[in-house]
């Protein structure tokens, strides 16, 4: 069944930064994404996990070509999209990849009617006449569980959960193949979150979508994803089927991440595990294994040699010296 929808090879994205010196000959780079390989099958939900600053959002921004990659190759549906021009992008992939942004309070233009917000992709790509457009927008709103007469309302008339529904309707307007969900529920309440997650699952089954879900809420990722990718400082440290990664994580970072969530099964604060310090700077990432500065099981070799991806079983991989 599965065909490869997205293929990413050794993708890198560096951002230039100026150092403090006035005349500076050496350019510094923030290595936001540093050599990521990834394959996404059609119909999968990929959960992308990591602390803030680890490059999750940059990775999807590059995939959407909202940022240009520094190095590496990206294929969507077999087409190499790494260096396509903006015009060519619009003709080939824009219709098929859509995104739902993190904060529905910022991602909807407050001056536009819902009709124009949801209808904009339709106007750009399909040039529908107005009556048909309204019809289509109403259908979309109904699909995401909003009343049809919301078309003539402004975003401020809706609650957080409803706004996120509008954003989802906009993303689905062109019937895309791949939808990127960048923290879709991080700014809404737990009950609205449950509704949105349920809606996303239904839509996926009905429309045969592929999702990339970014979230720092691991329970959300666990609930939604088929496969989980854990990133740390621009690199993938562990990836595998959701159940495997959740039940038996092998990388110390993944383990730490999972033990830091206060869950309903914990009884006291002592069961919470903390990681010392913050994510190190991506300008000068630590040598060797990037996690060695915070790793509870650090060994001498970790600071000098960068670990290779080790295959645990067919689908489950992790990059750590402990496994080698």
């Amino acid at each position, binding site marked *: 069944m599965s065909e490869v929808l997205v293929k990413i090879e050794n993708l890198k994205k560096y951002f230039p930064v100026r150092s403090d010196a006035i005349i500076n000959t050496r350019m510094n780079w923030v290595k936001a994404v540093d050599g990521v390989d990834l394959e996404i099958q059609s119909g999968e939900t990929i959960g992308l996990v990591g*602390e*803030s600053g680890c490059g999750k959002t940059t990775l999807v921004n590059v995939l959407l070509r909202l940022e240009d990659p520094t190095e590496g190759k990206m294929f969507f549906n077999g087409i190499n999209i790494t260096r396509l021009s903006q015009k060519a992008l619009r003709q080939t992939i824009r219709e098929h990849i859509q995104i739902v942004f993190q904060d529905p309070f910022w991602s909807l233009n407050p001056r536009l009617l819902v009709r124009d917000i949801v209808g904009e992709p339709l106007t750009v790509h399909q040039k529908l006449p107005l009556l048909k457009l309204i019809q289509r927008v109403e259908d979309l709103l109904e699909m995401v*569980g909003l009343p049809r007469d919301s078309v003539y309302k402004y975003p401020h008339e809706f609650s*957080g959960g409803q706004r996120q529904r509008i954003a989802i309707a906009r993303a689905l307007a062109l019937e895309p193949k791949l939808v990127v969900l960048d923290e879709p529920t991080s700014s809404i*309440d*737990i*009950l609205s*979150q*449950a*509704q949105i*997650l*349920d809606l996303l699952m239904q839509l996926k089954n009905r429309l045969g979508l592929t999702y990339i879900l970014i979230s*720092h*809420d*691991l*329970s*959300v990722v*666990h*609930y*939604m994803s088929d496969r989980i990718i854990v990133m740390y400082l621009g690199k993938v440290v562990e990836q595998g089927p*959701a*159940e495997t990664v959740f039940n038996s994580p092998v990388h110390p970072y993944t383990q*730490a*991440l999972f033990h*830091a*969530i*206060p*869950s*309903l099964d*914990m*009884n*006291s*604060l002592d*069961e*919470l*595990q*903390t*990681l010392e310090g*913050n994510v190190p700077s991506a300008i000068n990432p630590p040598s060797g294994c990037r996690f060695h500065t915070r790793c509870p099981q650090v060994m001498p070799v970790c600071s000098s040699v960068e670990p290779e991806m080790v295959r645990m079983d067919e689908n489950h991989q992790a990059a750590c010296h402990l496994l080698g």
Partner: protein
Amino acid sequence: MGKYFEIKNLAVGFKTFEGIRPVLNIESLSINRGETYGVVGESGAGKTVLALTILGLLPKPAGIVHSGEIWFDGQDLLKKTEQELYENYRGKRLTMIFQDPMSTLNPVFTVGQQIERVVQKQQNLKGEMCTKRVLELLDVVQLPDARSMLKKYPHELSGGQRQRIIIAIALSCGAEFLIADEPTRNLDVTIQAGILKLIGELQKEFKMSVLFIANNVGLVNVFCKNAGILYRGKLVEDGPSAQVIHEAKHPYTQTLISAIPRLKSEKLKFASIVIKPEAEQGCPYYSRCIIAEEGCARQVPMLETINGAQKVACFLAGRRSL
């Protein structure tokens, strides 16, 4: 002599153009000395208003306290004048950690200046003594390299570090009662765990009582001895957190807990968008409640003891469950 901290029949409203809108209506809530109490609710439930009312910081003239008593160590805080609150309570005995570590600190002053200012004002320390106290505080919140930290501006710090500074400011005057208003919102899980542990350690070390506000049941479960569930300004369930969370009796609490995604195979339960019209005089949860009966629309249920220390405000509690 009553409890150490106790709220009785507190009713708070906000003036709007359409008249006074009730925001809080809490029959009873009590915290013993040195204990932690967690308040959980959705946004708009009145969690922050509760915190502000206790500290006497309700926005004026919009916020009105209709009735009620807030007893703190034998004194009714609502009867105190602004002057008394400022001089004897706020900051000195009662203190608060505010919600958003990104915007609580003033961006144009260094961290050191901001902590010093509070120490100077509240404890009348000057010069050397003041700096010494500030360094002590930074040590208490486990910030390494304290001296260089003093000269930094908030934008140079990470979210976790900022939250630690805010905790240092809150603790600067040795308060015994701490209100933590979603202290880990917007923080990463790993940082969140660190901040929670820190507050937990400080609570034990200084024997503080903590009123912990959260929108996440999981946090309250690990952090608090007792917990209360707030729905539209009303405490609907109250008791030891283990009981409230694992043996929830109120349909709202049950819904809240089952809405937390856990396993893929499990279906999430949630209250769908308004099913019934609002009940003017009835239970505030009537319109979203799945098990509500006709009687629920006519009368407001009171908090009643149901299972040892657990209290529930629901006519149907225990009789039926989801």
